[in-house]
C-alpha cells in the first residue's frame, strides 16, 4: 500500500518550477548583506580608519621614559666618591584627595605620617590647606622600601615620582673637593658644579605599544633622544686623601687652629692626589650646612707664603748667575738695615752657605740674594712658577693670589718679597711651585682629573738649578734645620718650613699661618706636599713644629702606599753627608 501510494505520488507529473522572485529576493538579500559587510569593512579600513585607530592608540600607546642617574665620581683607583641611587618622591594631588573622599580612613594617613617621620597634622595640613591645588610634595627622597609601603597604603591622590639621591661615601674627607648637588640633582659646589653638564644625563622618552597585561609589545618612535651621563675619574687617590685628612684634622685640633689645608701633588704630571681642608662637613647630612665649612680652602684662600718661598729666591739667584751654589753669604751681625727698616735673624749665623740659609731660614741671607737680582726678575720667577695665575685645576672659586706689578720698589719691600711677604698664594699654588722644583723645573698645569698621559709642561727653571736647590733643602729636615719634625727615616725630604704673620687692617696681627712644604724622596722625587695650618692658638706656632709632623706623616704614608722604595741606611748616610757638607 505504501509503495503504491509512493509510486503514485512520484508518478504524478509535478515538474519543479523556479519561483524567480524568491530566488531574486534571497540572492538580493545575501548580496546586500555581503555588500554592506564589504562596505562597512571598506569604510573602517579605507574611508575613515582614523577614529578606530585613535581609540586603539588611546588604549595601547604609552610613552615610557628611562630615568638616568647622575654619573659616578671615582678616584684614580676606582673608589667611589659620589654615587647616585634612585629614590622616590611622595607627592599628593589635593584636589583628587578631597574629591575622592580621601580622608575617610584616617588610619592610613597616620601610617603615612609615621613612615615619613612627620607629624600627621603637617601632612594633612599640606593636603587640606588648598583643596584646589593639583600638586604638593609630601616628602622627597624616600627609600624604595618606604615607597613600597606607601604604594600599599593605596591612599587616593597620593603618588610617587622617581628621583635620585646622591651619596658621598667619602663623607667629610672629600666634602669640599667633590662638592654637593642640590635636591634637584644639580651640582652647586666643587667638582659636582664644575663638571655638572658632563655628569648630568637626560632621560630618553619612547612611545611603546603595551598589551592588556602591561607588556611592551611594540617599540615605536623615540620621542626624546636621551643623553647618557658620563662618569668622572678624578686624580685623587682616596687612600692618600684619607690619610691627609686624618693628619690634618689631628693637627688642627691639637693646635686649636681655625682651619687648615693639605695638598698632595704628583710632581711628574701635576695631578692632585689629595686636597683636604678642615673644618669639614658631612655632605650626606645636610641639615645644618655652614658655608665656611664648604669652602675648598686649599684653592680659594690665600695667605702670605712666608719662608716657604725662600727656595725660589735661591733658584732665581742661581738662575740669574749672581751667586753660585758653592758661594758663602755673610749674614753677620744677624740683622741689616734697609731704608730705615730692619731685617733680622733670630741669631747671628755668621757666614752661611746657601743650604744653610735655607736650613736656618735666614732672612738676612735670603734678602741679600734677593737684592742681588733685579726685582722684576724675582717676581718673574715667582710668576713663571704659577704665582698670581690660575693653576689650571678648573674648579669654581679658585683664587689666583696677588702678586704686585709696579715699577718702584724700596729695598725693604724687595727684601720682604724674598721671605714671602707682600704677595699672596694659595696652598695649591705653593704645592705647584714645589712640584715644579721637584721635577727639575717643568711647570705642569694642575689637574683634578686622572690623566692618560702627562700634559705638556713648560720649562721655567733649568734642571741644574732645580736639582741644586733640592739638594740644599735636604738640610731643613736634618739636625740643625728648622723642620726636623718633618724628617722621615727612609725618605729624604727636600722641604721648607714657613711661618707668616697674618695681615690685619693697618699692619700685622698676632695670628700666624704655619706652613710646611716639601718634595720627597729627594733621590727620585715623587710627591710635593704642602701643609697649611691657619691661626694655630696653641703654644707652638712655628711652621716646622705645627705643620712639620703632619707633613712627615702624610709624606711617608703616601710614599709607602705608592710603593716607593725607601733608601737604605747607607745611602741615607751618604745623602746626609752631602747635606751636612753643604750646611756647615
Amino acid at each position, binding site marked *: 500500500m505504501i509503495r503504491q501510494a509512493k509510486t503514485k505520488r512520484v508518478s504524478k507529473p509535478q515538474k519543479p518550477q523556479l519561483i524567480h522572485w524568491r530566488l531574486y529576493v534571497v540572492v538580493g538579500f545575501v548580496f546586500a548583506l555581503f555588500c554592506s559587510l564589504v562596505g562597512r569593512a571598506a569604510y573602517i579600513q579605507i574611508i575613515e580608519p582614523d577614529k578606530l585607530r585613535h581609540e586603539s592608540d588611546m588604549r595601547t600607546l604609552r610613552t615610557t621614559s628611562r630615568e638616568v642617574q647622575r654619573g659616578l665620581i671615582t678616584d684614580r683607583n676606582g673608589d*667611589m666618591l659620589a654615587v647616585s*641611587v634612585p629614590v622616590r618622591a611622595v607627592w599628593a594631588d589635593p584636589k583628587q584627595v578631597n574629591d575622592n573622599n580621601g580622608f575617610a580612613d584616617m588610619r592610613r594617613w597616620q601610617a603615612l605620617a609615621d613612615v615619613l617621620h612627620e607629624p600627621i597634622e603637617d601632612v594633612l595640613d599640606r593636603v587640606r590647606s588648598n583643596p584646589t591645588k593639583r600638586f604638593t610634595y609630601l616628602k622627597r627622597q624616600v627609600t624604595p622600601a618606604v615607597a613600597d609601603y606607601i604604594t600599599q597604603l593605596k591612599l587616593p591622590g597620593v603618588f610617587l615620582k622617581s628621583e635620585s639621591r646622591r651619596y658621598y*661615601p667619602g663623607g667629610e674627607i672629600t666634602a669640599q673637593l667633590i662638592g654637593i648637588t642640590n635636591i634637584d640633582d644639580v651640582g652647586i659646589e666643587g667638582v659636582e658644579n664644575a663638571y655638572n653638564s658632563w655628569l648630568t644625563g637626560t632621560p630618553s622618552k619612547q612611545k611603546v605599544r603595551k598589551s592588556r597585561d602591561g607588556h611592551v609589545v611594540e*617599540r615605536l618612535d623615540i620621542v626624546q633622544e636621551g643623553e647618557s651621563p658620563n662618569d668622572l675619574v678624578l686624580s685623587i687617590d682616596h*687612600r692618600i686623601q684619607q*690619610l691627609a685628612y*686624618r693628619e690634618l684634622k689631628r693637627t688642627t685640633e691639637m693646635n686649636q687652629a681655625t682651619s687648615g689645608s693639605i695638598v698632595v701633588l704628583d710632581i711628574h704630571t701635576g695631578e692632585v692626589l689629595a686636597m683636604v681642608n678642615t673644618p669639614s662637613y658631612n655632605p650626606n647630612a645636610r641639615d645644618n650646612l655652614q658655608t665656611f665649612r664648604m669652602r675648598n680652602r686649599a684653592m680659594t684662600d690665600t695667605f702670605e707664603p712666608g719662608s716657604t718661598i725662600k727656595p725660589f729666591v735661591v733658584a732665581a739667584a742661581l738662575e740669574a748667575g749672581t751667586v753660585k751654589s758653592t758661594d758663602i753669604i755673610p749674614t753677620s751681625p744677624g740683622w741689616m738695615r734697609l731704608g730705615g727698616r730692619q731685617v733680622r735673624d733670630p741669631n747671628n749665623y755668621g757666614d752661611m752657605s746657601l743650604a744653610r740659609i735655607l736650613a736656618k731660614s735666614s732672612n738676612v741671607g735670603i734678602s741679600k740674594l734677593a737684592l742681588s737680582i733685579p726685582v722684576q726678575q724675582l717676581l718673574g720667577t715667582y710668576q713663571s712658577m704659577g704665582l698670581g695665575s690660575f693653576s689650571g685645576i678648573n674648579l669654581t672659586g679658585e683664587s689666583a693670589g696677588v702678586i704686585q706689578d709696579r715699577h718702584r720698589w724700596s729695598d725693604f719691600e724687595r727684601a720682604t718679597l724674598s721671605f714671602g711677604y707682600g704677595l699672596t698664594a694659595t696652598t695649591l699654588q705653593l704645592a705647584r711651585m714645589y712640584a715644579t722644583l721637584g721635577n727639575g723645573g717643568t711647570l705642569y698645569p694642575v689637574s683634578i682629573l686622572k690623566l692618560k698621559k702627562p700634559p705638556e709642561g713648560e720649562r721655567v727653571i733649568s734642571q741644574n738649578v732645580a736639582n741644586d736647590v733640592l739638594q740644599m733643602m735636604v738640610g731643613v729636615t736634618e739636625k740643625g734645620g728648622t723642620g726636623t719634625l718633618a724628617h722621615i727615616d727612609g725618605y729624604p725630604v727636600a722641604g721648607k718650613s714657613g711661618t707668616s704673620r697674618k695681615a690685619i687692617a693697618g699692619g700685622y696681627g698676632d695670628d700666624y699661618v704655619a706652613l710646611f712644604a716639601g718634595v720627597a724622596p729627594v733621590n727620585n722625587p715623587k710627591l710635593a706636599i704642602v701643609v697649611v695650618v691657619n691661626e694655630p692658638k696653641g703654644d707652638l706656632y712655628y711652621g716646622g713644629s705645627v705643620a712639620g709632623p703632619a707633613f712627615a706623616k702624610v709624606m711617608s704614608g703616601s710614599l709607602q702606599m705608592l710603593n716607593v722604595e*725607601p733608601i737604605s741606611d747607607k745611602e741615607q748616610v751618604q745623602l746626609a753627608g752631602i747635606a751636612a757638607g753643604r750646611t756647615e
Partner: protein
Amino acid sequence: MSKPSLNLPRIVLHDLWRHKWILLLALLVLGHAVAVVYTSHVSRKLTTQWDQLLQERDRLDIEWRNLLLEEQSQTEHSRITRIASKELNMSRPLPSEEVVVKVP
C-alpha cells in the same frame, strides 16, 4: 549523461593541474600570510622579553649602586686600619724598617 568519461574528481584535478601556477601562488600567499602573523607574534614576544631584560638591567643597576655603597662603607680605609691595628695587632712599618724584595 551517457558519456562515461565524466568523472568529476578527475575533471577537478585536471582543472587544478591546468592552473597549477596560480594554485601554487595562492598557496604561497596563504603561507605567507600565516608567516606574517607568526613573525609578528614572535617579534612581539621578543620585544616583551627585551623590555623585561631592560627592566631587569635597571633593577640590577640599582642593586649594584646600593652594593657599591655598602662595599665602600665596609672597605673604608679608616675602618680597615682600625680592624688591622686593634683586632689583628698589625702595624705599618716605618719606611726605615721596610725590607725591599726585588723581583729579578
